[in-house]
């Protein structure tokens, strides 16, 4: 099992597009992936868009990511990278 804490860095938090990207990424792995809000402990299956959306994680929220399964190392790596890279949202603007 892998565990890591990341902070939601993109301005809009886990809104629909970001949530969709996260779930799509999670679905590429066989491991079980859970997200938990560090403040409230509320957890969600990263492969369920509804669960992710209902976390209502706005910018600045700390999330504890847990992965468990044969590809748990790659999975936690990919999920954390996606969240830390602000779901690729901010690069578009930096292009200017």
């Amino acid at each position, binding site marked *: 099992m892998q565990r890591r804490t990341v902070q939601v860095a993109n301005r809009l938090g886990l809104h629909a597009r970001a*949530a969709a990207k996260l779930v799509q990424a999670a679905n590429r792995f066989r491991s079980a992936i859970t997200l938990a809000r560090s403040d409230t402990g509320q957890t969600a299956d990263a492969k369920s868009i509804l669960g992710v959306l209902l976390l209502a994680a706005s910018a600045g929220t700390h999330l504890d990511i847990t992965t468990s399964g044969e590809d748990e190392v790659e999975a936690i790596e990919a999920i954390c990278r996606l969240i830390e890279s602000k779901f690729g949202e901010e690069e578009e603007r930096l*292009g200017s």
Partner: protein
Amino acid sequence: MTANSEIILRGLGISPGIGWGPAVHSPWRGRVIFRRRLAPQEIESEVARFHKAVGIAREQLRVLRQRMEHALGKEHAYILDAHVLMLEDAGILGEIESLIRTNAVNAEWAVKLVTDRILAIYAEIKDDDLRERGSDIEDVANRLLRVLSGDRSTCAFPESAVLVSETLPPSLLGELDPQRIAGLILGTGGWTSHVAILARGLGIPAVSGLRGALAQIEDQALVLVDGTRGLVFVRPSPDVLQHYERQRQEREQHWIRWQARAPLPTMTRDGVPITIRANIERLSELDDLHRFGACGIGLLRTEFLFLQAAPELPSEELQLEAYRQAAEVAGRDGVAIRTVDWDENQMAALGTLHALRDRQMESESSEPWLPERNPALGLRAIRFSLRAPEVLKTQLRAIVRAAAFGNLRLVLPLITSLEEVEQVRHLLQTACRELRAEGIAAPDRLPVGVMIETPAAVWLADELAAVADFLSLGTNDLIQYLLAVDRDNDRVASLYDPLHPAVLRALRHVIQAAERAGRPLEVCGEMAAHPLHALVLLGLGARILSMRPRAIPLIKDFVRACELTRVREVVRQALAASRSAEVRELLLGSLQELRLELPDEALLNGSAPPVRGVS
């Protein structure tokens, strides 16, 4: 009320034209869901029916996503990714399935129960942006319910029918095939609402503001939508139908004639050349420039770029590419690019405001943002641009760079003081200097125009003309501010009157100020697209009119029929009138004397969309 009698409903015309066909109530709102108890042996087949519906809905979304990505770009299609994922969410599907089994209820009822529960959780979310996503859940649930009702088409819309709906949700906009809709009847939504803009762009006649009256339109009843006058006829009498059919034929003939003559130069009967330009809202409209015979672009709105990039801001490169395309299509005739014109509430709705507050307005971002109570008088247009100079500079840099590809001008919206113009000029110089320092060519001169659309700008017109290279009359906002009427509010929209004596006198003052200063003046509001109003503008001395492309052929033909010396005289008389009714009477009465002829309907509205409906 007998079952067969004609009913006439008066609303707000938000997209001109005539269409008729059977009424179809939107299945997206006000759906009544019944609960049915299942017999034990029915349960398995109900679960199977539910899963089949999910599969169909998913496939619909996949097709729709492709279509939306193609039409609106990747950034808009993402929302459908979330919809698809919801239909793949084992948690949601499992919960619905177990409800069907344990409660022995029909799939529709189970979908409703689960949706209501999720929406209740959503309602508790504190973050505004995240909470709004609840509408996506509703949208998906409605799609499922529609499929469950046995409706298998992505668009359940019959040929040439009239859509009746309280409002239109976003996914519906992308989904309906505009060719099939004869007309739109809406409960709410004003002239500048998203639906209205879309309907006008697609040429679908639409009437809004019929909130309480929608129930009077029964399903499948024949309805006629007159989007020009804002009228809806339910079960129109044979006389009414005949009248409109005659009008349709007349209109079609006129339209063929107008379009054939559109490429010809535009000159009044007494030889005064008039320039007719196009107002452009989206890049896809650039094709219309040549199709309808426009002489360049008198107003390129740039809000579409901000919409496209939301919630981020459009990059310099993205803007450059759009302006370059416009510059190349318009060629020598040129393009007037207006800096972004929207208000805080619109930006907040797209999420852009938050992006900005984080970056640009640090000093204010500690305070919570509250929706603007009076956006028309708030931080909008140039006020916003000057408050967020980085955003303005990016836009100016893109325009300056695009000027290498054509003949560009800059137009500033909602100016109320000389200082605002000077500040933009200063920023423009800085942008040019920086670009040159980066080794990028910047033109020596980029003409800067001032939109005259506030009473303050009217009374400063002489001074503004002195500091600007040209003036641009934005009649929509000018009339709104002069008459203190919000035309999006259907309860006061009828007070919005371009022929109000106060409007005529303000226009005269501005046009004369431009003449005194020797500056070109362009008119780029809706007024220019309306023959009767265009007559006033010409009579007052305007020589450059810019309008939505579809209105161009008609106005060109109208201008060619005008004898300007006589028009001037009629308008001189109209200026002395102290009531709108007198002005209107004078103008209408003079048409015969001016030897101007137009079909009845075109007199009331300048647009000429294709006529739809059963013929």
